[in-house]
């Protein structure tokens, strides 16, 4: 059974007990993203401290509706990026994106991705890759907007 390789315990844990969930103040940017094929939605806020690439991600808060993969991914993502500089977080995002596009062939760097390595199995299922990326894309969009407003 391949199910276990997709739904690793880490993913199910984050799904059942999502971290950083709920919309909080303060924030510089809020975005709403949807997955048009299934209707999954996320509203996500970013709060930065500092300017430009060196700004620190002080908080990521979100409200999300969706499957286990999209929920767990939002939780893992916020764990990973909160406290990092935008520059560092973008590296993680790139690495995660690459893993998701690897069609099961990726060799994730656990030092960079931490819990997010658990999503390696998802990359074998093209239709679910969008679920795993939903919150990441929302975060990237919100961060770009927050930086745009700061400049």
């Amino acid at each position, binding site marked *: *059974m*391949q*199910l276990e390789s*997709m*739904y690793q315990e880490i993913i*199910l844990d984050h799904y059942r007990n999502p971290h950083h969930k709920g919309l909080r103040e303060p924030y510089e940017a809020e975005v709403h993203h949807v997955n048009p*094929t*299934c*209707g*999954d*939605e996320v509203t996500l806020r970013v709060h930065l401290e500092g300017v430009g690439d060196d700004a620190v991600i002080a908080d990521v808060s979100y409200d999300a*509706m*969706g*499957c*286990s*993969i*999209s929920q767990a991914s939002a939780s893992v993502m916020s764990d990973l990026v909160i406290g990092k500089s935008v520059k560092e977080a973008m590296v993680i995002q790139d690495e995660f994106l690459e893993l998701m596009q690897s069609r099961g062939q990726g060799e994730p760097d656990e030092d960079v991705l931490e819990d997010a390595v658990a999503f390696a199995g998802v990359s074998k*299922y093209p239709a*679910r890759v969008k*679920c795993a990326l939903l919150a990441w894309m929302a975060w990237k969009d919100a961060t770009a907007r927050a930086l745009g407003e700061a400049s």
Partner: protein
Amino acid sequence: MTLLPEEIKKDFPLLSRTVRGGRPLVYLDSGATSQKPVRVLDAEREFYERHNAAVHRGAHLLAEEATDAFESARSTVASFIGAAPGEIVFTKNATEAINLVAYSLSNAATAGPEAERFKVGPGDEIVVSEMEHHANLVPWQQLCRRTGATLRWFGLTDDGRLDLDDLDELVNERTRLVALTHQSNVLGTIPPIEPIAARARQVGALVLLDAAQSVPHQPVDVTALDVDFLAFSGHKMLGPSGVGVLWGRRELLEAMPPFLTGGSMIEVVRMEGSTFLPPPQRFEAGVPMTAQAVGLAAACDYLTELGMDKVHAHEEALTAYALERLGDIPGVRIIGPTTTEARGGAVSFVVDDLHPHDVGQVLDELGVAVRVGHHCAWPICRRYGIPATTRASFYVYNTLADVDALAEGVRHAQKFFGTV
């Protein structure tokens, strides 16, 4: 069962394949697209290997044969729904068929006096319902945007039926067209067309049925239905992809301005302006989906031989069994009618504490192909306050054992995620 699905399955090469590590395929996604019998594939291939040419454009033997094949496909499709061949317009899918009517209405504004009766503008109303597929909703939203007309809609009752309480208010003297699904692809619901069509007649409104889910699954006779337009797709009724149908009452098609323009739909072309052929040619610009029309005719023949009454009865039996088996599972809730009355074989459901994507994933792993999401009818999900559903949909090749596999798969998903 009325049909012998185990026998029928043998006609469908794809259904004998295995998935996900050697599991037999249980295909419960015919609502999205159906599989194709060998006969349809052979008909297309025979056309390409023997008779392929551009239709209505040549005088040589192949062109004659291709034109004959295409026009005889038109006749077959026409008979299948009790229509005359001249009322059948081939399109690429049901979506194009519905857009064709919507654009004809806005094109009427600049198409001269003959098209006057189709003009739509501010103050006019178009009526749809909350259970429409996006294909029968967005084109009307866009028509309203182009013309300034207003979109209105029937709501739904809690048990998945059209709410007709407001019929007389909703369909009124301002109504120009009522566009309704003839069978919901999510709820399975078959709305009562008669009272709506009667009211539309009373106020002089046109009626278009989105028959994408009815023509494949129930006997449909346009002379019995008192409506003006019917749209459906070939790929959902055992036919090839790339072909759909608009049926329209002859006198309406005669008066409607063209939509897509180009070769084969013109009468006389001058640089300064052009005149157009009568229907159906007026609406078939360019080299058409010839082989696909031929394939669709073969699909109609196949279904006619099975008997559409029997097809419907077969699906009713599967639906009844599915409603029962799924209904027995604690935590499962059917979205849509829970009996087979006025209902087709699309069975949507939600499972407590489980997202449809996750249910679908477990089923897929077990070889059971269902669809998850909003099924291109997002407003239904909003209406019932759910993010999405899991949908099983049946066809001639499905068996009771397929339904068992579905029900067992749902239980397996519950166990896997520990929700029971």
